[in-house]
């Protein structure tokens, strides 16, 4: 296996241009934390983007940050925190989940995060990673260096290739530089905990809370066994299933909304506990990074994106055991675990067919990832179009070929 490590865009262009001429497939690599994410595929070499690292522009008052694709989030986050800002989509770090090993610092890069479009619990309110990418520089499979987007929030100049590249798993272009929108961190964060609810009642609670003007920025449900394993004492101490709603903002606003929300939900359930500041932050960070499943050995981990009101219906249709799932995004995100040796949820395809949405096999051994669709198959017309898009930017299929879908 040849390993390439270009130092600048023109070297990167040359490597890709040559790879295209020879038809040599390459595996793109930032910091390598998501190596096991996606379909297994054959590459003749690796292409490290590690040299494209560092924050080149950060203007807090303009709400904008530009950094090289391989810049560690561990470098970006403290910088933002110092200025009281954040990436509002709560970038998820799947590094520990994919490696099965907890880590006390983030291992991921900005480019990897964007290439996989990973968003955390604030997604229903703040949007996904893709909603925060303002501009990009990159190199196509043929070795053409290009830029798209800009550094301002409001921009409709040309096609939005930022969105096309976000979540493309490195199959269309090698990104070298990314410009993202940043936002102020909320002054206060507080989570209301409800205990002992069924998934169905929890989902009703979500529908009502997220359909209200109380601006809920996190809505998750942990069945009893997962709540018991929480590293937050006030969560594990409840001894039952825990449903959490998060409120963020200026203090008077959080207080007023807490009162309003509690009254609104009174007919369904009453909060039994509150998480303030540090505890609230730690609780949502754990869910963001799928911590409940990190150390579960020999287990396949699935992530289902669903119409939010259907989260509990999916739990019922899949007949999930309480220790094997939790709901986030107000029911719109269902995490589930299934022993690798067992048949993978047989009702998965039928459930998604009935409810809408799609599934991603986030973690599994290579055999399972080769045998099962890691990303759900697309409708024929959509798949054909995706193939033509791949062919227009990477005609010789040298960039991560097959990582997303066979033939892409």
């Amino acid at each position, binding site marked *: 296996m040849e390993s390439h490590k270009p130092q600048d865009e023109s070297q990167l262009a040359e490597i890709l241009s040559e790879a295209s001429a020879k038809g040599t497939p390459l595996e793109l690599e930032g910091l390598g934390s998501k190596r096991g994410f996606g379909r297994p595929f054959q590459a003749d070499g690796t292409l490290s983007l590690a040299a494209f690292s560092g924050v080149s522009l950060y203007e807090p008052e303009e709400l904008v940050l530009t950094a090289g694709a391989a810049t560690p989030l561990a470098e970006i986050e403290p910088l933002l925190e110092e200025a009281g800002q954040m990436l509002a989509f709560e970038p998820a770090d799947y590094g520990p989940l994919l490696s099965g090993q907890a880590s006390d610092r983030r291992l991921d890069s900005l480019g990897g995060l964007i290439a996989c479009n990973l968003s955390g619990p604030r997604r229903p309110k703040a949007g996904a990673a893709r909603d925060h990418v303002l501009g990009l520089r990159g190199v196509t499979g043929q070795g*053409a260096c290009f830029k798209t987007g800009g550094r301002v929030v409001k921009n*409709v100049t040309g096609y939005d290739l930022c969105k096309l590249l976000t979540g493309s798993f490195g199959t269309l272009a090698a990104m070298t530089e990314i410009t993202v929108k940043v936002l102020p961190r909320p*002054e206060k964060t507080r989570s209301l905990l409800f205990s002992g609810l069924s998934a169905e009642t929890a989902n009703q609670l979500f529908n009502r809370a997220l*359909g209200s003007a109380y601006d809920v920025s996190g809505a998750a449900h942990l069945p009893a066994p997962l709540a018991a394993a929480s590293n937050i004492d006030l969560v594990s101490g409840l001894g039952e299933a825990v449903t959490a709603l998060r409120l963020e903002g200026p203090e008077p606003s959080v207080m007023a909304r807490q009162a309003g929300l509690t009254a609104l939900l009174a007919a369904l359930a009453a909060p039994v506990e509150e998480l303030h500041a540090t505890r609230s932050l730690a609780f949502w960070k754990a869910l963001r990074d799928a911590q409940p499943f990190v150390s579960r050995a020999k287990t396949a981990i699935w992530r289902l994106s669903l119409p939010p*009101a259907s989260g509990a219906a999916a739990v019922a249709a899949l007949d999930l055991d309480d220790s094997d799932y939790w709901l986030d995004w107000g029911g719109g995100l269902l995490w589930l675990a299934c022993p690798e040796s067992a048949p993978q949820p047989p009702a998965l395809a039928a459930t998604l067919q009935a409810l809408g949405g799609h599934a991603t096999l986030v973690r599994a051994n290579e055999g399972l990832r080769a045998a099962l669709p890691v990303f759900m198959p697309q409708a024929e017309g959509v798949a054909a179009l995706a193939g033509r898009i791949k062919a227009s930017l990477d005609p010789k299929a040298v960039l991560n070929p097959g990582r997303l879908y066979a033939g892409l």
Partner: protein
Amino acid sequence: MSLVMPKPDESVMARRAALAASLREIVPGEGVIDQAEELAVYESDGLTAYRQPPLLVVLPETTQQVSEVLAFCKREGVKVVPRGAGTSLSGGALPLADGIILGLGKFNRVLEIDYDNRCAVVQPGVTNLGITQAVQHAGFYYAPDPSSQIACTIGGNVAENSGGVHCLKYGLTTNNLLGLEVVLIDGTILRIGGKQMDASGYDLLGLLTGSEGLLAVVTEVTVRILPKPPSARALLLGFPTSEQAGDCVGAIIAAGIIPGGLEMMDKPAIHAAEAFVKAGYPLDVEALLIVELDGPEAEVDHLIAQVARIAEEKGATTSRASQDEAERQSFWAGRKAAFPAVGRISPDYYCMDGTIPRKALPQVLERMREMSEKHDLAVANVFHAGDGNLHPLILYDANKPGELERAEAFGADILTLCVEVGGVLTGEHGVGVEKRDLMSQMFDETDLAVQQRVKCAFDPDSLLNPGKVFPELHRCAELGRMHVSRGKLRFPDLPRF
């Protein structure tokens, strides 16, 4: 007009009657328009400086008809210009002499409202405001609010990725969509996304939004709807200089406050608006800010006080917080009437739409004053200060020989300046034909070729809305043979159109 469009295909124009007859077999009766006086209705959109009657107008009623019309046009090599309400300010729906207008006006139904999933499924001809009207009784609304929202359609909003005054907090169209049904030029019907938050595979939803009708025709849209904030208050702030107003905006954001609306007007715009609607604007200031906070009452009151303090520190000479809904509306009345107000003091005006990094505002306004002298035309500025989107209104008189050309040259200078200071050519109006020839100010040949190759994946014969967005048309076969050298694509020299 100075605009050069692709050379009309004589053979298509010669077959006009036969094409009309065939199209009537797909869309019967009045769905195909071929009479000159009726075609004239469609000869321009919101950018009225350019006019061209279309070959024919087709008004389908079903997705199946759209599919058959497009497949037919592809077979016959007929160009297609999609059109919603025709409110584009960049000429996105400007017809072609050898192309049909595909009007989506009959797709005007709200198909489903799903409050539990906080979304609505609508046809593309539903107006932007129509969506909010369909859900407001339940306390919901659709967030993007372009100023033409009473007339513009959601299909057009998708094509242009329309914005509005609340973008900084609530995003553009692209941030408020969940799904689309679209038809490709070969007639293929695709469904993308749904009611779930993230779609799988490539983000076609994101790519199609803002593609200005060059990639596909939208036949159904699933939008996010949001609970309406329970209260809103506005602050009216006047400053002796635009620098101070700009500083104040920066300080508000640095304090961690993202207002729902944050608008700035310069002196000519303030005076025009005040003369027109008597909003009570101070006339002795150089810049006026309207800062609107929305959300729970406790939050709004808290933040209004904070913003007022910041404004005082930054030297505001006028500071008034709205005490009731009527007063809030009156603060907005002048801003919302800014365009017609300028229309009152000038026979014609030309509305520009660049975006700049906010800190560059004083420099841009200064340079604009110099340009105003050079081109001998006045300019008034309204500015979405929160997101850097600038709308200079150039005042001219189309009846005076040479003034339109001078206004266009002035506009081009302004947009070039926007790019020079790190901004972009268009924030929300789209490239269309208006900014097409300026694309090379922002993108090099390779940047544009990469975009055009994506176009080839959708429309290899370049039949959907050709002549818009890109300054040069390249055949897809040529783009496929392009030679890459040192990271840049090399073309043989090609004539423009």
